[in-house]
C-alpha cells in the first residue's frame, strides 16, 4: 500500500509495474459554450440510463442537476452580475498574490511574469453580466476517498492512474458514496424512474437499467483508453474546453492558460486540482475556474477522509481499551 495523503504517483502506489503515464483531463471552463455535447457523448458511449424525471430544474440551462450514478459529465450553468464578477476578480487576484509555490518547472516565458498592474484590464466580454459554464466530472483523485474505503476491491486504480468500478465485484454497500469528498460517485437506483406521463410509451421501450444497485461513476472511458482512444467527452467537445492527455502535460497546459488569462487582466481565472499538496494529493482532472469553487458546486477545501484514518484507528483503539477496562472494573471492583 502506498501513502494515504500527500504528493505521490498513484499508479506506482497501486503496484503497477510499467511506465504508463498518468492520464487526465484539463477542463478549461473559460472557453466552454455549454453545448452539453460532453454529457451526451458520455451517456451514449457508456450506455448510461436516463437520470431523473426530465424536469426543468429552474437553474439556468442546467437541467441535469448534478453528477450521479447515471450522469458522469455534468455541465453547470451560473448567471452572474457585475458585482459578482468584480468579487471573483478580486478573490482570484488574492490567490495570485498568495504566491502559490509552483510545482515543477515554471512555464517557459510565462506571460504572468509581466506586472499585472500594467496589464490591459479591460475584460474582453461584457462587464456587467456573464454566464459561467463548467463541465464537471470525476476528479480521479491521487488519493481517492472512494477507492480507499471500498471494502470489496471493486474500485481499483488503473494503469492510467484513474479510478474505476468493476461492476461485477461491487455489492452496492455505498461506502464509497460517503467517502468521496466531491460528491461524484453514487449507487445506481433500480431504474424505477418516474417519467413524465407523455413519455410513458417511449420509456416502455427503453432497455432495462444495467448495473442497478451498484456504485457508478466516470471511468475516464477506461475501455477507450485501453484501445488508445480519447475519452468520449473530450472527443466530442467542439471547443476543446475538455482537453485529455498525460496528467503532467495537462497541469502544464493549465498553468500556461491561467497565466495568459491573468496577463489579459482576467484575474478571476484560477486552477482547481493542480496542486499536489492539496487535501487529495492533486486531482487527475484539473479545472480552470472563473470564480470560487463552491459557486460551481465544488468543495473549497476537500480532504480525503482516509488521510486521518491512522488517527481514527488510534482513537478507536483507545476507546476499545476503555471499554475493556470498564468491564474489568465492573466485574472486579467488588459487589455493587
Amino acid at each position, binding site marked *: 500500500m502506498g501513502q494515504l495523503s500527500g504528493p505521490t504517483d498513484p499508479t506506482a502506489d497501486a503496484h503497477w509495474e510499467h511506465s504508463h503515464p498518468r492520464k487526465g483531463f484539463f477542463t478549461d471552463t473559460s472557453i466552454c459554450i455549454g453545448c452539453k455535447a460532453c454529457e451526451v457523448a458520455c451517456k451514449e458511449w457508456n450506455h448510461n440510463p436516463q437520470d431523473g424525471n426530465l424536469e426543468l430544474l*429552474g*437553474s*439556468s440551462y442546467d437541467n441535469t442537476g448534478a453528477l450521479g450514478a447515471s450522469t458522469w459529465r455534468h455541465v*453547470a450553468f451560473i448567471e*452572474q*452580475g457585475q*458585482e*459578482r464578477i468584480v468579487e471573483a476578480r478580486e478573490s482570484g487576484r488574492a*490567490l495570485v498574490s*498568495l504566491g*502559490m509555490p*509552483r510545482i515543477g518547472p515554471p512555464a517557459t516565458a510565462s506571460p504572468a511574469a509581466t506586472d499585472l498592474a500594467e496589464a490591459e484590464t479591460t475584460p474582453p466580454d461584457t462587464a456587467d453580466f456573464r454566464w459561467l459554464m463548467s463541465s464537471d466530472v470525476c476528479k480521479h483523485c491521487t488519493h481517492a476517498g472512494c477507492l*480507499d474505503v*471500498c*471494502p*470489496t476491491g471493486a474500485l481499483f486504480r488503473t494503469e492510467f492512474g484513474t479510478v474505476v468500478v468493476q461492476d461485477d*465485484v461491487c*455489492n*452496492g*454497500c*455505498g*461506502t464509497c458514496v*460517503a467517502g*468521496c*469528498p466531491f*460528491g461524484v460517485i*453514487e449507487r*445506481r437506483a433500480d431504474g424505477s424512474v418516474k417519467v413524465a406521463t407523455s413519455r410513458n410509451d417511449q420509456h416502455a421501450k427503453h432497455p432495462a437499467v444495467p448495473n442497478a444497485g*451498484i*456504485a457508478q461513476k466516470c471511468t475516464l472511458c477506461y475501455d477507450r483508453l485501453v484501445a488508445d482512444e480519447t475519452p468520449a467527452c473530450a472527443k466530442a467537445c467542439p471547443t476543446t474546453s475538455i482537453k485529455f492527455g498525460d496528467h503532467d502535460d495537462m497541469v502544464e497546459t493549465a498553468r500556461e492558460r*491561467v497565466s495568459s488569462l491573468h496577463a489579459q487582466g482576467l484575474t478571476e481565472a484560477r486552477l482547481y*486540482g493542480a*496542486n499536489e*499538496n*492539496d487535501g487529495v494529493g492533486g486531482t487527475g482532472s484539473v479545472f480552470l475556474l472563473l470564480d*470560487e*469553487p*463552491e459557486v460551481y*458546486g*465544488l*468543495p*473549497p*477545501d476537500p480532504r480525503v*477522509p482516509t488521510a*486521518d*484514518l491512522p488517527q481514527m*484507528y488510534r*482513537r*478507536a*483503539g483507545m*476507546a*476499545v481499551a*476503555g*471499554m475493556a477496562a*470498564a*468491564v474489568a472494573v*465492573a*466485574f472486579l471492583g467488588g*459487589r*455493587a
Partner: protein
Amino acid sequence: MTLSEFDSFRPSEPVRRRRREGKRGPGRRPANGDGSREMPMVPEQEFSSYYGRPVVKAAPWGNDVAAYLFLGGVAAGSALLGLGGQLSGRPTLRRNARLSALAAVSAGTVALVKDLGRPERFLHMLRTFKVTSPMSVGSWILSAFSAGAGVSAVAEIDRMSGSRLPLGPLRNVLRAVEGPAGFEAAVFAGPLAAYTAVLLGDTATPTWNAAHEELPFVFVSSAALASAGLAMVTTPVRETGPARKLAVLGVLGEVAAMKVMEQRMDPVAAEPLHQGKAGAMLKWSERLAVAGGLGTLLGGRHRGAAAVSGLALLTASALTRFGVFEAGLASARDPRYTIEPQKTRLAARRAAGITDDAITTGG
C-alpha cells in the same frame, strides 16, 4: 400584460430585485408556480453554492444501518458481559449475555445485508482485506465475532434444551470450545463496538467526519450501557451487579464523550446534532441515559426498577445511534455544512501562513 376581469383577484406584484444588486449568484427560493408573479430564472440566496445543491453525497444508507450500529453495540457489550459471567461464575448472566450477543449480531448482520445494493453479493465483503477501508476491517471483525458468539450461544442452547440438539460426538467438542469461543468473541467485541465510529468518521459527510476524534468513545460507551441495560432486563438482580456498574460507567462515558465531541467539532458541522429529528433524538437519548443511570444506581437491586432502567438505557443507545446517523445524513444534504467549515479551515491555514496546500491556486 393583459387585462382581464380576474385581475383584481391577483396579489400585487412584489418589486423584483434586480439581479445585479449584489446578490451572490444563484440559490434557493420557494418556488412560485402559480403564475401570480414573474419568476426569476435564477433565484437568489445568501451564501455561494450551486443552486443550494449538496456538494457531497449522503451515504445511500437506510435505517437498517442505524439499527446495525445499535445492534452491533449490544452484541459487543453482551459478549463482554458473557465472558465476565463465564469467568466470575454467574451462569445466568453468562447464558443470557451469550444468547443476547448472538441474537443481536444476527439481526444486525441481516440488517446490513438487506441494506446492500446487491444483497446476493454480501460475501464479496470477504473477498479481500483492506486496512484503508473501515467497512472491510469491520466485516472481518464482525465475522470473527460472530464465530465466537455463535459457538458459545449454541452451547447455551444445547444446555437449555437438555442436550437435545442433534450434535452427536460434536457435543464434546462444543463443550470444550465454548469457553475459548466466549473469550474469542470478547476479544473482538471492543473492535466491533468501535469500528462503526471509524466507518462513519472516515467519510466526507461533514458531521461524521468532524466527529471522528470522539465518536469511538461515544459508541463504545453507548454499547456498554445498552448491553448492560439488556442484561438488567433479562437477568435476575442477583447476578447483574457488574452489569449495573457497567451501565453507570457507560452513561458517564457517553455523556462526557458527547459533550467533549460537541465542544471540539467545528461549530457549523456540529449544528445538525442539535437540529430537527436528529437533535430531538440526541436530546432524548441523553435524558434517557441519565434517567436509566440514576434508576440503576438507586433502584437497580429491585427487579422491576432494574428492568425499567434497562429499557431506558437500551432506548437511549438506540436514539444515540439513530441521532448521530441522521445528523450526518442531514449534514451531507445541505451544502452549507460542507462549504462553511472547509472555508473556515482554509482561511485559518492561510492566516497561519500555510499557503501551499489549497486546491485552488492562482497558477
